[in-house]
């Protein structure tokens, strides 16, 4: 029997030779990632009820990112509880205020091909960029994992997305995902696994591959995955870890795929999703001219070092338009330090960008930078559901970092390619 990469990982975690799509199996979890919002404060009461602690502290990574830094007594209390959980459970891997969980996890070398990983967050598919099977689960599920080190899974089918051709200037992985959201809809993924492949993917750097997998969540997939290669291995080595056996964790030739979508990337331009769904995406020209109050470069989706560099390309020697504001919340402390070292931050701040703490910030309305009634924002985040970033009547457009930066410069949505040399 030929198997997909996903089937191989699940079979291995389930202690089986092979598994078939639709089958429900119990898997041993290699790693569980939790954060301050969905983690300790939600799982602790269940663990207390069971009278049990974390099954293996070595295999749990706890990251504070949603409520950092505390802005009121309630967020301070949540963070305090998070820190206490880390020490009570003797968690060796607790990253406090080091950045957004999906970015910190691989940055610190916790992911490698072949792993079976669960995350207590809906954007956990991001980890699939490293050739592991990583998906998001809810609090009750997570409490079960923390108590036993196991969880059940229904083996998904694979939907293959083949990306071919080189990306044109001003285009990024974010545009690929917005275009896919428009084409397939938010339930196009049907809770199966979306595998990205093709010559575009094999030259993409890891942070861009992470964006592809990150937004598999917006397609309604259980997760996204990309088979490991030399680029994966280099990233993992740079993170101070060992990539393991990359060759073992590949698809068998002719492995079963439910459907294949082919997209020519060379023909793709910058995309913008209008409120209130990523599926409302279209070429930037469709929304050009829309006045904005705020431009936001942030989130696990759109504020990694490469994203900050894209914004800087547009902002070099330019200024944020008066009457609008540009907020930048880098995805991690490491990315922020790297952006400081290579001059990216200086370009952003010279243009008038307001630097925000690393963390989820305004992305889901938890931190600073939220919107007032009727305000309009363009953001490099993944979701623009009604009211997510602040007041119920606020409107959020989604774009790539070039597009967000360009909108900040003119105060309205505009094709960013006009600003690229």
């Amino acid at each position, binding site marked *: 029997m030929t198997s997909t990469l996903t089937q191989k990982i699940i079979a291995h975690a389930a202690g089986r030779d092979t598994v078939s799509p639709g089958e429900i199996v119990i898997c041993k979890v290699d790693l569980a990632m939790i954060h301050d919002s969905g983690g300790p404060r939600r799982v602790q009461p269940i663990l207390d009820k069971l009278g*049990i602690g974390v099954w293996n502290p070595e295999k749990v990574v706890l990251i504070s990112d949603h409520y950092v830094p505390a802005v009121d007594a309630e967020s301070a209390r949540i963070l305090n509880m998070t820190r206490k959980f880390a020490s009570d459970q003797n968690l060796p891997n607790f990253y406090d205020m080091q950045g957004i969980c999906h970015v910190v996890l691989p940055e610190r070398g916790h992911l490698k091909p072949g792993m079976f990983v669960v995350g207590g967050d809906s954007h956990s598919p991001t980890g699939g960029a490293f050739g592991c099977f990583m998906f998001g689960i809810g609090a009750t599920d997570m409490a079960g994992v923390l108590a036993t080190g196991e969880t059940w899974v229904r083996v998904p089918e694979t939907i293959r997305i083949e990306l071919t051709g080189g990306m044109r200037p001003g285009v990024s992985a974010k545009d690929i995902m917005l275009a896919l959201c428009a084409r397939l809809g938010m339930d196009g993924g049907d809770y199966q696994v979306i595998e990205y492949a093709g010559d575009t993917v094999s030259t993409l750097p890891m942070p861009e591959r992470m964006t592809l997998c990150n937004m598999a969540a917006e397609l309604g997939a259980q997760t996204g995955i990309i088979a490991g290669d030399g680029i994966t291995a280099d990233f993992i080595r740079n993170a101070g870890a060992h990539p393991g056996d990359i060759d073992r964790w590949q698809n068998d030739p002719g492995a079963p795929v439910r459907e294949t979508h082919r997209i020519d990337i060379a023909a793709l331009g910058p995309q913008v999703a209008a409120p209130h769904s990523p599926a409302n995406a279209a070429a930037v020209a469709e929304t050009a001219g829309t006045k904005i109050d705020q431009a936001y470069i942030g989130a696990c989706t759109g504020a990694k070092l490469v994203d900050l560099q894209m914004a800087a390309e547009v902002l070099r020697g330019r200024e944020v338009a008066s009457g609008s504001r540009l907020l930048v919340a880098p995805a991690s402390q490491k990315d922020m330090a790297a952006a400081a070292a290579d001059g990216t931050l200086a370009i952003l701040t010279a243009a008038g960008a307001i630097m925000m703490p690393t963390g989820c910030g305004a992305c889901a309305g938890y931190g600073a930078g939220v919107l007032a009634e009727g305000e309009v924002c363009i953001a490099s985040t993944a979701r623009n559901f009604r009211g997510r970033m602040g007041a119920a009547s606020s409107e959020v457009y989604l774009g790539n970092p070039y597009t967000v930066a360009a909108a900040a410069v003119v105060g309205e949505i505009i094709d960013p390619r006009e600003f690229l040399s």
Partner: protein
Amino acid sequence: MRKTGVIEKARTWAYGDYVDTDVLAPGLYMKSPMEVMAAHCLETIDPDFVLNVRPGDIICAGKNFGMGSSREQAAQSLVFHGVAAVLAPSFGGIFYRNAINHGLMALVCAAAPRIASGHHVSINAVDGCVQVEETGNEYPCEPMPEHLLAMLADGGLVSHLNRRFKE
């Protein structure tokens, strides 16, 4: 004793495609206690449901049942009313996990939309077979493995683990 994974002659409530989590657990009542939330379950598509549902009834629905948010209350509302199972050709992925974790049987059954409201259905989730009393029709469904059926019998993940750790 009732056999695990077997449901006999359960009365059906039939619904269409895409019954979402807001229909099952309206966002408006998210801060309310479960009995208030459950009192509004499905009301936007069928006000009769909460008035006449009886413990042991089942739901037969169209594709992508429970699509939408990750809120566990969507499954809990149905459990509150004693709904024994949901049959559908496909489920919202997170709802599917939440349902089983909260003790609600969720069966993937391609023929579910063909089953009418108010009929009586017998299910064998071990063999993967569904039988409609009124029509005599028999349909296949995806079987559920024993370990999940045991969890359902215990009333969900937390009670299942509780029992496991006490043993």
